[in-house]
């Protein structure tokens, strides 16, 4: 196992390097610059700004400056939020998204897995249809529809919850972002669990267990649950990264100040260092959680050994 972990870390380095290189040059090849605006700047003013941010140098030099900074843990200054560095912005916004994300993840896993199993065990019953209908609605209902609907209902009509803000994560400010964030994940997890459970319940070893006369709860908990969870877990690894790195919709509608909107705004504003920062962050987290998924696989499935 230890060798496996070292191997994964060793593999992660070139992967991240390729990711950084490709993203850097792609980003710099996009038309426009961080400082292009409707009010175009006099050339001498633009020259001063470009010099300050090394933008007057060849892209390859800029790349090595950037890489040098990254190796020292410095993601550079933001081109958009000029008073902040990317490190500061990430430090301010990631915990917000992570808190919304972790709650959403827990809720999504608990509700999604329970609903999926329940529906699978009562395949083609009313309950199953209800759960699957909910799951399909959850998947197709985008959160840019769900978020304003939540605000309209809970904040404007019922006046139960604040329409936005974060206030250091006080619970009333958490409820709607968590609903908006978790719904589609609940739906996806329920669908995957149901499908996987149905498949497992039709496999030979379950039939054997039944033939042996084991009670249903033991068949499900001892024999069916583990194999059922394998596809769910491979979905959960990347899903966890997605969920804790926030959503632009949640940030925009609820004004939470999370990291989600930096993904979109960074690209639109050509905030090169912001785009690179969030790319590196998501890249590293994806590699990390894929490794966690692989380890969990080994824990759950005794056939898998590293």
């Amino acid at each position, binding site marked *: 196992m230890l060798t496996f972990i070292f191997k994964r870390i060793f593999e992660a380095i070139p992967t991240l390097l390729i990711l950084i290189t490709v993203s850097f040059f792609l980003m710099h090849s*996009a*038309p*426009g*610059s961080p*400082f*292009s*605006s*409707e*009010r*175009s*700047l*006099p*050339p*001498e*003013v633009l020259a*001063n*700004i470009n*010099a*300050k941010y090394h933008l007057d140098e060849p892209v390859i030099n800029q790349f090595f400056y950037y890489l040098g900074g990254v190796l020292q843990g410095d993601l550079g200054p933001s081109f*958009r*939020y*000029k*008073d*902040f560095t990317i490190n500061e*912005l990430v430090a*301010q*916004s990631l915990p*917000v998204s992570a808190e919304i994300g972790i709650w959403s993840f827990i809720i999504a896993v608990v509700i999604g897995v329970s609903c999926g199993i329940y529906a699978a065990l009562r395949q083609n019953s009313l309950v199953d249809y209800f759960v699957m209908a909910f799951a399909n609605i959850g998947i197709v209902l985008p959160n840019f529809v769900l978020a*304003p609907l939540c*605000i*309209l209902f809970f*904040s*404007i009509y019922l*006046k139960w919850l*604040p*329409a*936005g*803000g*974060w206030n250091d994560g006080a619970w009333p400010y958490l409820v709607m972002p968590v609903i908006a964030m978790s719904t589609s994940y609940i739906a996806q997890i329920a669908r995957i669990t149901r499908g996987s459970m149905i498949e497992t319940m039709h496999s030979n070893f379950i039939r054997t267990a039944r033939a042996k006369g084991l009670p249903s709860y033991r068949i499900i908990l001892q024999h069916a649950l583990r194999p059922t969870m394998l596809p769910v877990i491979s979905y959960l690894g990347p899903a966890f990264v997605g969920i804790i790195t926030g959503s632009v919709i949640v*940030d*925009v*509608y*609820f*004004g*939470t*100040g*999370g990291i989600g*909107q930096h993904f979109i705004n960074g690209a*639109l*504003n*050509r905030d090169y260092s912001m785009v690179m920062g969030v790319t590196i962050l998501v890249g590293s987290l994806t590699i990390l959680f894929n490794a966690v998924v692989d380890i969990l696989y080994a824990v759950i499935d005794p056939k898998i050994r590293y």
Partner: protein
Amino acid sequence: MNLKKTLLASALMSLALGAVQTQAADVPAGVKLADVQELVRGGGAEPATLDPQKVEGTPGSHRTRELFEGLYNLDGDGNLTPGVATSYTTNSDNTVYTFNLRKDAKWSNGESVTAHDFVFGFQRAVDPVTASAYAWYVEIPSIVNASKIINGKADVKSLGVKAVDDYTFEVTLERPVPYFVKMTSHQTLFPAPRKVIEKYGSEWVKPGNMVSNGAYKLDSWIVNEKMEMVRNDQYWNNEKTVIDKVTFLPLENDSADLKRYEAGEIDITWNLPSDHFKRLKKESPDEVIITPQLGTYYYQFNTKVEPYNNPDVRKALSFAINRDVITKYVTGVGEQPAYTFTPSIVNGFNPETPAYAKMTQKEREAEAKKLLQSAGYDKNNPLTFNLLYNTNDGHKRIAIAIASMWKKTLGVEVTLENQEWKTYLETRKAGDFQVARAGWIGDYNEASTMLDLLTSTHGNNDGKYSNAEYDRLLNEAKTMKNPSINYNKAEEIAINQDMAVAPIYTYVTKRMKKPYVGGYQPNPEDNIYTRDMYIIAH
């Protein structure tokens, strides 16, 4: 003399007499104030910076105006009111301005605001080390050596600014610029606290470090969540300030802004989504505030490309736009059709109605057909082109409407081409377009802020319109006491005669404001100060 000119004259007179007419919350007798004086404002996008010399964009201007104060302010009508300066004098040829500063103006740390702080502020703005995107703002009034310093050809200390003594600040211009004093209300020309900036470097604008001289001081700033400012008890007019705390919520999305207003979490929104205008106007007519803005929405022709180098083609296309239909049914929130490039609300200049604006739309359309035919295009040989705009539903609706007007009246075949913002800017800048959507919001309340745009050397003249007489008129206007004559001639040449661009409508600012917020003074430049406002008991 029209009303605006009267107001300007009276304001100048009061200055000359040294009368102190300041801006502050003016609570009418009998109004009962609320116990809690806290205001929450929708703040548009998160500003790029709070450093006055570096701020760009209106969201940043709104916030820095709360935190800092320059030599003069502009009131709701665009007239000067004293800020840190109480009066000024000029030399005989209007090139040296001497400002007398008030002795009670203080920074939030209790130190006096002196002429040295203005010297430092002005120098910072042009210093290449600061790399301010607004450095050009110091070049416009032609402050001595500003251009050379920006170009790195002169030392920053050679800028034409001087602290005669602690409370006398002198600015020397290369040529007389009549509207220079008005320009001092802009944040680029605000004072800067040297000691604090030298101590903290670029970190000086962070909460805890920042020292400011406006009615408010920065209390907290969480990017993309909120920015809180509290009363600066060192402010010279603090006694007249009523609101204790103002919070700006950075909400770029108009719909999120409105939802939080409807939930009672915001007192004044940044904008309001046009789709909701009719409903809101019906449900809460007193809360919808529409104010004409100093800016024009227009279509730009690439005058270097055939056949748009032919004024007849440009005129035909402009005449065929039914501006009343656009403003009434497409935008529909009270925008005014525009036939001149300078909005009529600009201070000190009332543009004459051009001949084509006096025609009926039918007459204009008939004339448009003739003009296009004379240029060699008709329904059998239709003019075809791409209409470029930046991706946005509002621009799309206008483009569809205008394209169909052109098709119906002139048989013109238009392909709509939308591009993401930065790509669109790049395309326009490169001149890689035929007709493009554009807009321009004035930087200061004087007609040259609009008209300069169409001079041949202006960096934003993307259509590359060029007319020697127009350039001469605008250049001459810069030193004229009453430049209106030149401005009218310039409008006549660029629009009525050449149709360099097709003005479509005058922008408006649209906001929702709770009825309990008093003292809100909407104005064409959108210079809104929280220190003028108060919360009525409700």
